[in-house]
């Protein structure tokens, strides 16, 4: 199937007083038409930076796109000017943020915030846009949409705000929707509502979705494919089944083992990942996961593993898959 988005060898750094923080260090992934890709990882692993870089929302400086490309429908977004990006944002690519309160304009009626992009991008008349905005609010399950369109964001509850956010993001029928931790700030029952809504809307519109999350449950529920990020790099990528049932990177395996499952015995100890992620001000030379990995080898200390094909477009960056590591790999596979 056709790739709607291709991220190639992307490097992003932040310049701080203490030096250069290499937040994203050469990542590759693609998003196909109509699929949902999850990007998972711990805070500081670069997942949000990656998402925001697709929209080019990061201020430069301190952000610097060091190298690589972000190809959206074949065009490199990193080469686009701010003006060209404004045409793409909200029209071809929509975005949902974690905290709807900070991403909605508090001084503008919710309906206006939707009509604005319809008028700007789709060239609708004010009347048409208003009608369409109410239609959109209805579509995302906001009751009394004609009344709600005339209200300000603060009059909405958290779940309603997130719905409004989705309505705005989907107003121009974007080809790609980026959802950056869309449900982290919400309660479980509201999260369930929003996730159902996103699935429903995707079935209707055929939009591709990138969902950034740290919740593996959300990934299992929503995604076709998964990109596991660690310390600014891709540790493993594959289909949701490959990642959950045959994880090939000790980090992925560790993540899966550290969450309790409802079928676990009570008080059966969880298997946490020891330690904390490395400081990206001074990224390690070898494998970034070395200091926390229970399968670590001498080679991991000094040599960085590359993403290797595991079969079926499943890739992992780990020395365990090197032919010389065969006896270590047995322990891992168990």
């Amino acid at each position, binding site marked *: 199937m056709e790739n709607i988005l291709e991220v190639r060898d992307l490097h992003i750094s932040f310049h701080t007083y203490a030096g250069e923080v290499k937040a994203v260090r050469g990542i590759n992934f693609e998003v196909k038409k109509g699929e949902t890709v999850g990007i998972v990882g711990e805070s500081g692993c670069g997942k949000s930076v990656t998402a925001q870089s697709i929209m080019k929302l990061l201020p430069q400086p301190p952000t610097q796109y060091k190298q690589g490309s972000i190809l959206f429908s074949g065009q490199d977004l990193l080469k686009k000017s701010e003006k060209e990006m404004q045409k793409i944002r909200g029209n071809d690519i929509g975005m949902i943020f974690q905290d709807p309160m900070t991403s909605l304009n508090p001084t503008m009626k919710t309906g206006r915030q939707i009509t604005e992009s319809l008028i700007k991008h789709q060239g609708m008349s004010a009347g048409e846009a208003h009608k369409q905005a109410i239609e959109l609010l209805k579509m995302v399950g906001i009751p009394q949409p004609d009344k709600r369109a005339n209200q300000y964001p603060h009059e909405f509850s958290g779940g309603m705000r997130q719905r409004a956010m989705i309505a705005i993001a989907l107003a121009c029928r974007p080809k790609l929707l980026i959802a950056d931790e869309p449900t982290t700030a919400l309660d479980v029952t509201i999260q369930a509502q929003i996730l159902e809504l996103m699935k429903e809307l995707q079935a209707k519109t055929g939009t591709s979705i990138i969902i950034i999350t740290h919740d593996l449950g959300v990934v299992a529920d929503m995604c076709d494919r998964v990109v596991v990020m660690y310390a600014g790099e891709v540790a493993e990528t594959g289909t949701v089944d490959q990642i959950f049932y045959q994880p090939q990177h000790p980090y992925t395996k560790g993540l899966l083992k550290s969450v309790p499952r409802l079928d676990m015995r009570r008080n059966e100890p969880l298997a946490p990942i*020891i330690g904390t992620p490395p*400081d990206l001000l001074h990224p390690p030379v070898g494998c970034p996961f070395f*200091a*926390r990995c229970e399968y670590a*080898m001498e*080679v991991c200390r000094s*040599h960085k593993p590359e993403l290797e094909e595991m079969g079926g477009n499943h890739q992992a960056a780990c*020395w365990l898959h090197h032919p010389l590591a065969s006896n270590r790999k047995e322990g891992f596979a168990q």
Partner: protein
Amino acid sequence: MQPETRLTADMFRPVTDNFKDAETIGRPSISYWADVWRRLRMNKLAMVGLVVIILLVLMAIIGPMISGYTYYKQDFTSKNLQPSAEHWFGTDSSGRDMFTRIWFGARISLFIGVAAAFIDFVLGVIYGGISGLKGGRVDNIMMRIAEVLYGIPYLLMVILLMVVMGPGLLTIIIAMTITGWIPMARLVRGQVLQLKEQEYVHAATALGADTKWILMKHIIPNTMGPILVNVTLTVPTAIFAEATLSFLGLGIPAPRASWGTMANDALVSLLIGNVYQLFIPGFFISLTMFAFNVLGDGMRDALDPRMRK
């Protein structure tokens, strides 16, 4: 990319010591105030301000002693002299040495500034602290009282004070602080209201700490930053206010001098062309204002948690 050829089977032996550094912290330890000082030092303008203040203080201490003249000795044979090797800043209309008087005036002006700031600080912290800590009705009443006080026209109050107490250093300081503590009290109250709901304050309560302990250990240390900025900015305001009052003739009486009274005295000889008599005290007032303001601004930036990281 690593060339494959360099890899040997030996390199694939397991390691076990990789966890040992799991809880190690790489960055060097730095205390809050050391960190603030580090950021303040990077602000060149603030450092210029700091150096100027130190020089001013030093000169206020030794300045009156080095010229060999006293601030009060009148010498009508050498009045209104231009700055020269004899009199570095010239003499005034009564023939007093301006250099000595400037540094003597610096003592008075700086003293007024620091005293006013200190009194504002003490009153403001106590009043604002109680208001914020007690909260509810007590807070409401205390803040209304402060607002009413703040509403009284300032000059009117000062003139009244002068009439009642007569001119003098004490009167000036009281005039300076009678409403000056209110902004400080408001600042402290806001900080306290915010801090007392912090989880670490709850944690201290849960550990059995009483109000006094929480105030001393948690609230005051955490309000020190903004308070210090405010104090730093109060000093020049007070110096300037004193200069204004002195210039209007409401200052401290002769023979003692502050920069404001010197500027006032200079008005007479301005008519006969002795601009330097006004210029010199004016310059030092401006310099002090500038130094304290840039230092205060620098401190504000250095203390701002949003600039941390």
